[in-house]
């Protein structure tokens, strides 16, 4: 087996898998390296929402819209196994003033290409018959989708492996990123072997800062904890992905304290997922029952019928976030051959397709479909001067 590749992707999460996929599509041979199994990190600890609805106008929304388009194409490439469902999202305002706020937000989004339809009364209940009838109104986002992120990551990689274009190295911890005299990366060293490539993609999610440090650069990525509640399998109660209006405010928030805003959705297997809390408490895994209770209360406010449903389990993980809540995507100007694809916070599944696509464009020197400037790793350097495009 050769140890030399066109590119090495560190991290077999959904972002790494997508990078590997589009690099292969661009004609490169790729090694994917993970210290655990496929989807061992946050990809195996979150939900699979692919959303445009929760993004305010700006670079992240542009990325989300591109991703949304690419995901619909991916269904044809990898097939039904990834449980991709274009079910649409419904943001619900319980009080009149939150609904008004939602509507105003939707108008701004619509100007950027988001399809958003305000719904009230009977129309709302037709979309979600079990929704609390007291809700003031909602906005329906037909572009929102859902996938099973672990399966998405696994199948994207497996396809490349079957084609003979991806070599998967699991249980291989990257411990060094050697560089040549020019300072350019030459590959990675794992606990078991040395792999060579002129291009290393850092897709290590929450641990992306550690990989960047191995290459000698700073990329500030921190964990933001989240828990999800899982019910017993039930007959369909929830059709779409339904969330309360507060959710959008929390996603963008800088507050370290606990935030919860229920996002309720059904899955293929009949279970209902209730997410998600957001807290900055480092890597502490201890379950907090205050969080569980708040999520349960908010979910019941949306769907009173869930009161009878049993909580079967909870799980959670650590979203990779950057201080400005934008991911780090693209070549690192400080280290030739190093690219980053990490720090996607609570949207890595959704944004993974566009991220992989843009990484592949950069790898073969095609000018990117979206400007990578807002996502540049150097933006955190003290002396960095942002290049403003006219």
């Amino acid at each position, binding site marked *: 087996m050769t140890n030399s590749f066109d590119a090495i992707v560190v991290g077999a999460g959904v972002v790494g898998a997508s990078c590997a996929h589009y690099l292969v599509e661009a004609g490169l041979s790729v090694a994917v390296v993970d210290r655990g199994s*496929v989807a061992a990190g946050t990809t195996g600890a979150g939900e699979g929402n692919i959303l445009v609805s929760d993004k305010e106008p700006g670079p992240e929304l542009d990325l989300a819209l591109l991703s949304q388009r690419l995901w619909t194409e991916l269904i044809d490439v990898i097939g039904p196994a990834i449980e991709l469902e274009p079910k649409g999202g419904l943001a619900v305002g319980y009080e009149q003033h939150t609904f008004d706020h939602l509507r105003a937000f939707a108008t701004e989004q619509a100007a950027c290409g988001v399809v958003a339809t305000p719904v009230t009364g009977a129309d709302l209940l037709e979309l979600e018959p079990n929704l609390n009838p007291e809700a003031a109104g909602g906005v329906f986002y037909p572009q929102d989708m859902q996938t099973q992120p*672990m399966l998405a990551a696994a199948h994207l*990689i497996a396809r490349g492996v079957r084609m003979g274009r991806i070599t998967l190295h*699991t249980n291989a911890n990257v411990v060094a990123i050697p560089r040549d005299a020019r300072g350019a990366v030459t590959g990675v060293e794992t606990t078991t072997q040395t792999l060579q490539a002129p291009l290393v993609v850092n897709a290590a999610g929450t641990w992306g800062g550690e990989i960047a440090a191995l290459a000698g650069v700073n990329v500030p990525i921190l964990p933001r904890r989240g828990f999800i509640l899982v019910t017993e399998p039930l007959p369909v109660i929830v059709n779409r992905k339904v969330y309360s209006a507060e959710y959008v405010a929390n996603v963008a928030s800088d507050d370290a304290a606990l935030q919860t805003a229920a996002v309720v959705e059904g899955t293929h297997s009949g279970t209902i997922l209730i997410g998600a809390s957001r807290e900055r408490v480092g890597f502490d895994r201890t*379950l907090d029952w205050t969080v*569980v*209770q708040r999520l349960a209360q908010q979910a*019941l406010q949306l769907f009173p019928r869930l009161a009878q*449903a049993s909580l079967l389990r909870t799980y959670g993980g650590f979203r990779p976030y950057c201080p400005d809540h934008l991911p780090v995507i693209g070549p690192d100007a400080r280290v030739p051959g190093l690219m980053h694809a990490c720090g996607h916070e609570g949207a890595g599944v959704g944004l993974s397709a566009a991220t992989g696509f843009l990484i592949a464009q950069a790898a073969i020197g095609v000018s990117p479909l979206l400007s990578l400037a807002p996502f540049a790793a150097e933006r955190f350097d003290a002396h960095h001067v942002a290049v403003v495009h006219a």
Partner: protein
Amino acid sequence: MSDQRDIIIIGAGAAGMNAAYVAAEPGLAVTVVDANPCPGGQYHRRGALEQRYRPSGCSDENRWARVEILSGQQVYAVNSMPDTGHVLVRMRGDERHPHEIGILRARALIVTTGAMDRQLAIPGWQLPGVMAGGGAQSLIKGSGVLPGQRTLVTGTGPFLLAVAASIVQAGGEVAAVIEANAPAGLARHTRKMFPAAVAKTAEAARFAGILARHRVPYLTRRRVTRIAAGAVDTQGRACVSEATVQRIDSQWQPKPGTEQRFDVDCVTLGFGFTAQLDLLLQLGCAITDAPDGGLAVLVDERQATSRPSVFAAGETTGIGGVDLASVEGRVAGLHAAAELTGRAPATALVKSLHRQRRHLHGFATALALAFPVPTQWVNDQPGETIVCRCEEITLGDIRSARDDLGATDPRSIKLLTRAGMGWCQGRMCSFSVEGICGRQANVAAQAASASRPVSVPVPLGAIARDENVMRESAQ
């Protein structure tokens, strides 16, 4: 009544009840919480009418008067309060009262949640009429119901004799006892621990005598390799009608051409037990590997775990039988009480308990070594064998996640196939999945797949309304 207790014991089996009796020093409020309708645990299972289980040597009713027993309460979560060090015990009522939930607060906790049957997937194990050995025994002891008309008792260990004996004593027929190992191995391992071995060997001999009187064949170095269903019955169910038994090698791989068929309507499978560690894992207690290939909570001389004021005894510290559970329970009770009263327990008593524990523990280890349970063979069965019964995931599904999708450990197998995500939360399939993964999973990986943040399902409505949580967070 206030929610504050001095010592809370979770599990009213031999370990928990001994711990409670010993811990009930004057001035200490001791509470035992148990899921079953009455105390006694696995071994001392009685009909619901017989309420009063008293472990032998625990006859001082003044002590029992200080012990509060809450039966029919399932503990779904425990956690320790970072500020006060108190442990919060969250429980819900039984199947008929799942919405009734409550919280108790303890200064010290003793976890004696026992063990559950360890299961392994074989073709046909999901059929009605197949059950775990412990399950069959509980059925007979608890409700006086026979598991079948004619039963094949299979698996490994002296426990098979106990199951077979209770079936014939309850008037059932046992077609044969199929032991995968060879009991001769035991003598080699037990020679050094004579006192404990004698009592246990006598018990086994008594069971063997019962089986001999009923002319039940005892066949060794064989295992059941396939269980087949008969015609569909009036309720539309196809129940067990036949089991195939084969000779096996030391890794339990079947030898071709040795098939032997038994016409039976019930098959029991006994592959040992799995310690119930959910609550201890929630508390973050250190876990270790046990000689039987499973996990156990790590305890010191005092039965104290790695977490402050959390003790454990009985099967949670490693599968060891009812006598070891009783002794460990006493040690835990003594030391938990001593920690709260500040009075050291009598040295002579402690010494004698420690000595008994050492002997019984040695015997348990010998048993585990004499009746090993290899698991790699699980992987070599037909692809259509159901592994996860809750989600109906087959061996073929798991093999393809492992071979084609890059899942190398039980957690990623679960994420990619749903094996272990269903109602039982992997309690039935995790040992099989570890076997299929091949690579001996390390303790951390095994503990990760055994950890369940919610031990028992709880209605969302009950959680949402729970005022205790609100008070807790208001503090």
